[in-house]
């Protein structure tokens, strides 16, 4: 996944930097698009192994609520995507020539919040998509309409923090992200058991 992130960054660099374009205003969008595409890639794989080797039945034998499987998968996906972000985000700043002028705490918080909501929705829908034909191709279509508020919130918050003009105060976007995250961790958690019923 890290390699994929680097590839995306490189392509963006070749495509945009070479033309002498200042990427500052569009950088937040580029950054989050990259994160979400790399994330979709990883999410797709989180259930494909379960499906192909039929290990989900074994997991369900655990004497606990089925929704714990969801939490476990969510945690795993968060860790993986988080590691990718730790490496890839600074690299994107460097390779695309955008100065980092944001307060680190809020910036990290925005990245975390933007990732949590995405991973939660994505984990639920990855479980759904894994059991369909052409599951991995279906996942982006399933995930994208649902995460629109998270994308807007994350990009606007990042833009505000990096000093982009006209994004408004970053706190309102963090509020949106936080509310979205709460809603879309709880709801998938509650309905997950219906997805993995045999």
């Amino acid at each position, binding site marked *: 996944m890290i390699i994929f992130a680097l590839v995306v960054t490189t392509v963006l660099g070749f495509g945009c930097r070479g033309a002498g374009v200042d990427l500052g205003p569009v950088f937040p969008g580029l950054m989050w698009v990259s994160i979400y595409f790399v994330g979709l890639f990883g999410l797709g794989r989180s259930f494909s192994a379960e499906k192909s080797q039929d290990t989900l039945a074994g997991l369900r034998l655990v004497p606990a609520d089925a929704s714990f499987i969801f939490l476990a998968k969510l945690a795993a996906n968060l860790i993986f995507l988080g590691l990718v972000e730790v490496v890839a985000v600074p690299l994107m700043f460097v390779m695309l020539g955008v100065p980092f002028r944001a307060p680190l705490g809020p910036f990290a918080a925005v990245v975390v919040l933007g990732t949590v909501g995405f991973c939660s929705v994505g984990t639920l829908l990855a479980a759904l998509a894994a059991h369909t034909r052409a599951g991995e191709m*279906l996942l982006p279509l399933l995930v994208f309409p649902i995460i629109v508020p998270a994308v807007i919130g994350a990009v606007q918050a990042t833009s505000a923090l990096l000093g982009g003009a006209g994004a408004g105060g970053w706190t309102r976007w963090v509020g949106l992200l936080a509310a979205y995250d709460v809603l879309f961790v709880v709801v998938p958690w509650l309905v997950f058991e219906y997805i993995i019923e045999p």
Partner: protein
Amino acid sequence: MTRGRSALAWLVFAGVLAALFLGLVYAPPDAVLGETQRILYFHVASAWNGLLAFLVVFVGGIAYLATGRLDWDRLNLASAEVGELFTTVAVVTGSIWARSAWGVWWEWEPRLTSAFVLWLMYAALLLTRRLVEEPGRRARYTAVFGLVAFIDVPVVFMSIRWWRSVHPVVIQAGQINLEPPMVLALVTAVLAFTLLYVLLLGMRMRLDALETRVAELKRLWRERREGELR
């Protein structure tokens, strides 16, 4: 058709004719936008039904998860398809209106963008149904996705509205002052299209019931043939 459905069909026919007359002839043209404003009546009516259909999918999904009866899934399927139809009309008429009012085929305006996201949700739901064969699983996935997506709809709308209010659109959405004749046309259009939704819903559900029956008959016939050949 049953007599009830036949009566409904006639009612829809009359209602849509009335809406066409009121919207295209009777109501006055808008002071600012002129005749092109008339598309509003059918755009709003379609968009409203797109949302209504999704609400039905939401409720039907919960009902299915609670009861496990596939009748609810039949309702969800029908409502999703008809809803996608109305949402398509809403987005296309919205785009046409944008072109005539603002000169561009597309604008990231809250309602138009939200309608487009709704369209994508429907598409995702319908495509998922295509890719799952087992009826129980298909019903469950439809229910879960419909549930999650519907909860998201107001969040999507609000977030897009916030986003657009921060970047004020240079071309303002046309302010429509609705005089009484226009209100009448709008209400008639909305009612007529809602009845149309109900009619199409019933027809689609009946079609699905017939398809299920045909599949069952084929299966029985096949089993009987195999029994005879043995």
